[in-house]
C-alpha cells in the first residue's frame, strides 16, 4: 500500500510538503480577501464611470465655430471708412485707441449684434507687450471685463509690432 505522503508527491510534483489544515484556512482567507478587494475596486470603477459621464448631457458645445462670424464682423468693422475717408483700422493705428466715430460704431456693431449671445464684450487696443489684463488699453466705449474664471473668446488683428485691435467675448 502506498503511503499518503508518497501519493501526494507523485500527484502534485514539486509540492513535496502537503499543506496543513491551518495553512489551507490561511490561503482560503487570502482568496476571500482578494475577491472582496477585486469586487470593491470594480464597484469603485463603476461608480466613478457613472458619475464622471453624465448621460443626460451628451451635447458637444460648439465653441470654435462661432468665432468665424465674430472675426468677419471685426474685419469688416476695421475696413469701414470714417467720414474723413480713412479706414477704422488706419484711424486706430494712428490714434492707438478708439475715437468717437469708430468707438460708437464698435458699440453698434458688437454690442448690437452680440449682446444677447455674450455676457461681456470688449473692443479696443491691446498692448501685446503687457500681460493679458494690463495689456488692454481702456477706452470710453467698453468697460473693462474680468476674464478670470470665465469662458472667453478673443480675436485680434495686429497693427504694430506689439499693438493689436482686439475684440473679447465672454460667455
Amino acid at each position, binding site marked *: 500500500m502506498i503511503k*499518503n505522503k508518497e*501519493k*501526494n508527491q507523485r*500527484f*502534485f510534483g514539486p509540492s513535496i510538503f*502537503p499543506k496543513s489544515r491551518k495553512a*489551507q484556512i490561511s490561503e482560503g482567507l487570502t*482568496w476571500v480577501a482578494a*475577491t472582496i478587494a*477585486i*469586487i470593491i475596486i*470594480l464597484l469603485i*470603477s*463603476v461608480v466613478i*464611470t*457613472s458619475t464622471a*459621464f453624465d*448621460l443626460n448631457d*451628451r*451635447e*458637444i*458645445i*460648439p465653441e470654435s*465655430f*462661432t468665432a*468665424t*462670424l*465674430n472675426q*468677419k*464682423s471685426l*474685419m*469688416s*468693422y*476695421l*475696413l*469701414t*471708412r470714417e467720414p474723413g475717408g480713412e479706414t477704422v483700422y488706419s484711424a486706430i493705428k494712428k490714434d492707438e485707441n478708439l475715437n468717437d466715430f469708430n468707438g460708437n460704431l464698435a458699440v453698434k*456693431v458688437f454690442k*448690437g*449684434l*452680440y449682446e444677447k449671445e455674450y455676457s461681456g464684450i470688449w473692443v479696443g487696443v491691446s498692448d501685446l507687450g503687457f500681460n493679458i489684463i494690463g495689456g488692454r488699453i481702456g477706452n470710453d466705449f467698453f468697460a473693462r471685463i474680468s476674464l478670470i474664471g470665465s469662458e472667453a473668446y478673443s480675436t485680434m488683428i495686429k497693427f504694430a509690432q506689439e499693438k493689436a485691435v482686439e475684440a473679447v467675448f465672454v460667455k
Partner: protein
Amino acid sequence: MKNHRIFLGKIGAEKTISVYWFAILIIVAGVIIYMVTFVYGKPYDIRGSESEILSGNIANCLSEGGYLKENTLTNPSFKQNFLKICKVNLKTPDFPETKGEYYIEVNFYDFNTGSKLNSSTSGGNINLKQYCGLEGKTNPVCSNKDFYVIDKSQKAYSINIISVVNKADKNVQ
C-alpha cells in the same frame, strides 16, 4: 480512508480555484462591458456643431476679406440658387422618410436703418424653423448668428443666418 479524503480535497481545492478564477474573469469582463456601454452606448449630440459649421460655411460664401461678395444682393439668381452657389448640399439619404433634416435662412438687413432687404433667402425643410427656441432634447437644434459686413461701396449690412439641424434619431436616444 482519511488519506483518501485528503487526496480528493486537494483536487477539489484546485477545481474550486479554477471556478473562482473563471467567476472573477466573468465579473471583470462584465464590468468592463458595462462601463464601455455606459460611456459609448449613447450617441453624442453634434447637431449644435453641425448647425454652427453650416452657418460658418454660408458666412464664408457671402463675405470674403471683410467685404460682401459682389453680386450677392444684385444677382437675382442668388436668391433662388444660393445653396448651389454656396455649394451646400442639404440632402439626407440616411433619412429618406423626411422632407429634409436641415433648414437654412439668410436675412440681409441694412445696418443703419435695420430694414430687411428683399434679397433674404432660405433653403431646406421650412417646417423645422418652428421648433427654434423650444426646449427639448428631441427638438431640432437652431443656430441664429449675425455678423456685420460692408460692400465695396462702403454700404453696411448685418446678415442673420439661421440654420436648423434635426437628425434627432442619430444624435439623441
